[in-house]
């Protein structure tokens, strides 16, 4: 007798069943579309809101950290420096926050019908990529302004700009895997939902979005920020656009390896929780 599939209590911690996930690729595209369309239904500005948030935050940072605390590196426009950091950081943080409540937010759907649960976090990563692309266009526009029109700064982009997709992969993996771990734990410990918002905020200050790594003088804090796996990516991204930062290939590989390890760990916890979360959520 050959059956199509077997439902049992046993499932390997790393089994992904990619074949099944692929069968549901239409669902993933529709979920992406839903995320994108539903958010800006009944708003006048629609997707323009995607620009507003990074612009406002960058202006605030420019005023506080650039003009008052004078933390921007020399020869780099403050606004561009913060916008660059923000754009990449936002991709990570929005992947993390959105995936971290996968189970709790979708409990009603998951409780009634089966589909590969992983399709939800994956769709989140993809729809955030769309959001990133829009914000990235903004970054490019601002960068072109400083490069071609306002020539008072001498921006020196580097060839590492070609590695931007790689930076994104690391950011996506880090956001996704941390999100998977947190979402799996929140089914049991709801406390984490409160911690996520606050933790992401804290992590931002600990990963050279606002304060350039070179400005951190305290050796302990410097090391902490340096070995934060997000920092090398942000530093490299800033370096690529010629807005300060530094490019260190080994540190970038370090981030990548950490991301892979976290991903394996995230998948394992997700698989474990996926089977029985309906009984605990």
């Amino acid at each position, binding site marked *: *007798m*050959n*059956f*199509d*599939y*077997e*439902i*049992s*209590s046993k*499932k390997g911690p790393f089994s992904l069943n990619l074949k099944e996930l692929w069968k*549901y690729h*239409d*669902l993933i*595209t*529709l*979920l992406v*579309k*839903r995320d994108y*369309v*539903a958010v800006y*239904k*009944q708003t006048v500005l629609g997707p323009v809101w995607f620009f507003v948030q990074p612009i406002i935050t960058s202006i605030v940072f420019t005023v506080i950290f650039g003009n008052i605390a004078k933390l921007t590196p020399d020869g780099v426009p403050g606004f561009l420096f913060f916008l660059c950091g923000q754009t990449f950081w936002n991709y990570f943080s929005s992947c993390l926050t959105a995936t971290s409540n996968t189970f709790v937010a979708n409990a*009603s*759907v*998951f*409780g*009634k*019908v*089966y*589909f590969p649960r992983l399709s939800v976090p994956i769709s989140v990563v993809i729809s955030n990529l769309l959001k990133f692309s829009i914000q990235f266009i903004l970054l490019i526009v601002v960068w072109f302004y400083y490069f071609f029109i306002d020539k008072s700064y001498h921006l020196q982009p580097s060839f590492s700009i070609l590695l931007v997709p790689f930076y994104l992969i690391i950011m996506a993996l880090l956001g996704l895997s941390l999100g998977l771990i947190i979402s799996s734990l929140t089914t*049991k*410990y709801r406390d984490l939902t409160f911690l996520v918002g606050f933790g992401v905020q804290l992590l931002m200050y600990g990963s050279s979005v606002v304060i350039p790594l070179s400005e951190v003088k305290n050796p302990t804090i410097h090391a902490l920020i340096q070995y934060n796996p997000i920092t090398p990516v942000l530093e490299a991204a800033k370096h690529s656009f010629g807005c300060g930062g530094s490019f260190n290939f080994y540190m970038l590989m370090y981030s990548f390896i950490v991301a892979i390890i976290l991903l394996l760990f995230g998948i394992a916890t997700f698989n474990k929780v996926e*089977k*029985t979360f*309906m*009984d*605990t959520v």
Partner: protein
Amino acid sequence: MSDVVIKVENLGKQYRLGEIGSGTLAGDFKNWVKKISGKKDTFEIGENDRTQQAKKGDVVWAVKDVNFEVKQGEVIGIIGKNGAGKSTLLKMLSRVTAPSIGNIKVKGRIASLLEVGTGFHPDLTGRENIFLNGAILGMTKSEIRSKFDEIVEFSGVSRYIDTPVKRYSSGMYVRLAFAVAAHLEPEILIVDEVLAVGDVEFQRKCLGKMKDVSGQGRTVIFVSHNMGAVKSLCTTGIVMKNGTVDFAGNINDCVTQYLKINTSDNEGDVVISQKGIGTGEAKITRLQLLNNQGTASESVLYKSPIRMRFYIYSSIDIPQVNADVKLCDKDGSILFHALNLFSHEPLSLQKGENIFEVEIDNQLLPGSFLATVGIHNASTMLTIDYHENILSFEIIKAAEIAAESYPYEWVVAPAMVGSKWSKIASS
């Protein structure tokens, strides 16, 4: 046709009672350390029979040792009392939750009609929701596209298809959702009537869809408390009791067995130990069916009044109560309702033992019957205690006066109504 499409082997699902985990991260961490160091998890106190009073932290098997096979094209009914494990079984079949032990092998796509409207997003239009909901239910985009016109037509909301569903009336919403689910065309369909909320019209639609599906030679799993519907729709059945399969086989035998579980042989005198449905301030502890001599008996003479005695223990004084008896045929369909309100005879309960007696006009024809009894608080309108199909009895052909006995071999209906016949004209 005899292909097995679902094979369930040693299936079990265990739940832990009380709080989940030890409640704190530290406590869970300690358990985890114990677990990996080879010692027993402190929570594994041992099994508990699900009928026993359970302590916090005990584990209970909601479903245990379940084995059965479903063949291609079979319409199988799953019946059992509330809490017998039917819904847990369905949840595992539809992969919502994983079993603790054992496995289910499945051939083909399983879909269930209780998923109506799952994943509908209020801000999206009807059109967008058809695609999203269809994809959640497992259809591909091209499948949905090819059935789109049919779905819209079936739902009858074509005028509003580009309006966000949050502006739909609830009826339109359900119709659209049902239309998507109905066009899913799964190989195996699960219909849980217990959970199918909605109006009568909607339930009728569900059953209609089910008939269509089974007519096309596909497999249907039907869960219901309505024995009449189960009998008319299903060919085979499974009776669940306390999480295990109590009986499996022909649907008629299943229904008989199910009703037997509820009543058990009682000889007209039932001592009720199990908990009934209701607030529980008072409990019906014993129920007797009395014959003409005033002794308990499970057979009632044809045309003799049905006399029942309720023994009720009440923990408080309740000044106004309603007591009722529902007489059902052997399939569980209600035939008659006897209530003290109908005859304007107020009843009350004093703290301690109380005895009520009721005499019901007997319009039943010979056959087997069941009685459902309940007591309700007349001022709050809440049910105090209620037992479904608790007492089985028989109406026998013999009457008190031999000449009035039921003379025929046939019985067409379970009961009769008084009627007057006269000839109006002849040529």
